[in-house]
């Protein structure tokens, strides 16, 4: 406990000294830094909001899961599916096509996830 506390304290010390360095730098070339900061603030303001909006939309991260599936998948496995006429029509994206919703059905472990 005591050790943890002292660790935390030394971390906060570090942060504090880091901040000091930063403010010292600001002082050194006050005018330039100031105007530079203004520019930065304007752009990071909206960038921050964009990221905040994406975070707010959902905590889920399906991209990460896809990276994992892709890494485990063997090249060429499931390619038969990409060649089916149903998938090709679905993927063609022509307006008015009947193939707008597909359901790939199969028991556990047949490799449905690796198709996606």
């Amino acid at each position, binding site marked *: 406990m005591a050790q943890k506390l002292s660790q935390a304290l030394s971390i906060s010390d570090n942060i504090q000294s880091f901040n000091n360095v930063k403010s010292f730098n600001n002082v050194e070339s006050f005018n330039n830094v100031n105007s530079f900061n203004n520019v930065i603030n304007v752009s990071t303001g909206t960038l921050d909001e964009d990221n905040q*909006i994406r975070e707010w939309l959902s905590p*889920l991260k399906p991209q990460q899961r896809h990276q994992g599936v892709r890494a485990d998948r063997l090249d060429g496995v499931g390619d038969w599916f990409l060649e089916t006429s149903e998938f090709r029509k679905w993927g063609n994206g022509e*307006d008015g096509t*009947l193939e707008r919703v597909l359901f*790939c059905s199969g028991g556990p472990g047949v490799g449905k996830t690796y198709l996606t």
Partner: protein
Amino acid sequence: MIDSLCDQAGEKNLAVAWLYCDFLAHREQSATAMLGAILKQLVSMGEIPENIRQTFRKRFSDRGLRLPDVVRMLKTTIPLLPPVYICIDALDESTPKSRQGLLESLRDIFWESPSMRVLFTGRSHVEEEVKKYFAEVITIPVSPTEGDIKAYLGMRLDGDTEPHAMDDYLRKDIMRIIPQVISEV
């Protein structure tokens, strides 16, 4: 498939989003979070559309995001995008409640979005549920091809951590019998 769509997305200009349902993530995978994740992917490139920004500014401080908010934002965002492709894996792994919310909402959005395509994967028992919301669904039965099974077996045998326990005969038998038994299933 997602990779194939993403490859095409560059050439043909498509917007692609996907979801993996997971037994182990029931608490996080509400219908709102799942549809939110789809919307998040659709707006991951380029600017956040104004309708989403406005809703965020209105909702962020007063209350959390709710399902009708996400559905409305999806309805107003999809027409701004190139054709939208949504892939949802392992639909059967979602809870019945979030699955109902997800399917119902997707259908509402789908009706207003002629450029939208959806693909589900799942065990056959959820097919009836999908049909209830999407009468036009086309089912493709999935089973691994013999070539897929052999490629997989070969990869596993090549990575064998005890190669001295293997000989050519055993390897041949494995490569012959396992694909045969699986294709009988």
